[in-house]
């Protein structure tokens, strides 16, 4: 969900995805850098993310990822599921 969220803000290469997740979570959530890639590949397999080789800001060849329409829908579903789960957990914790 975090990868989808990061890509919902625009196309990024893998390194950029990690940076953006750290940025939007105020450095609270840090994914182990290498493990990001199997995650990205799985999302691409599922059709939620597309990739294309291009040139990065520093003129190096890099693979850029972008959310697909299906990925955008999936992100909405996952956000709703997460809110439900977080809400239910909070309710359970507050129960006396």
């Amino acid at each position, binding site marked *: 969900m975090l990868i989808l969220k990061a890509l919902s803000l625009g196309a990024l290469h893998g390194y*950029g995805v990690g940076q953006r997740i750290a940025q939007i979570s105020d450095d609270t959530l840090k994914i182990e850098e290498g493990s990001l890639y199997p995650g990205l590949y799985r999302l691409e397999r599922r059709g939620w993310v597309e990739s294309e080789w291009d*040139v990065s800001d520093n003129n*190096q060849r890099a693979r850029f990822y972008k959310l697909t329409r299906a990925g955008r829908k999936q992100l909405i579903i996952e956000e709703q599921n997460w809110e439900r789960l977080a809400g239910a957990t909070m309710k359970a914790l507050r129960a006396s």
Partner: protein
Amino acid sequence: MGAPGWRDHEGATRKLRGLEKMSWIKATVQFLHAWRHPDEIAREVEAELRFHIEMRTRANIEVGMRPDQAQLAARQSFGDFDRIKTKCCEINRSLPVDSTVLKMAIYITIAVLAGGAALWAVNMSHAENRSARYSQS
């Protein structure tokens, strides 16, 4: 605003905007491509992972590390390069479906088609032998 190169790449974004097509067709094409050109896929995965380590190394240098320290730290924070590379290649070669039932159906279909093709080939060679025997007699 963090390390270099994480911001949107406008050129890439523009190009990618045209790629809003569905994806399982693309995933299937990629799956077939990965099986036909495993070396090319492995090279691409490696290039992508090396790019990441290079970006991390640069960021480490920017915060004051010596280049050798920066590279070592980048490799350490990345994790096991070979294991991750192998994993990515495996995912590329995996069927572009999640459902186990669907995967089974695909494997059975492939097996049935392969069996049918083998039977057809055997029958054809028998038929040719028979017709050769008739024409001799």
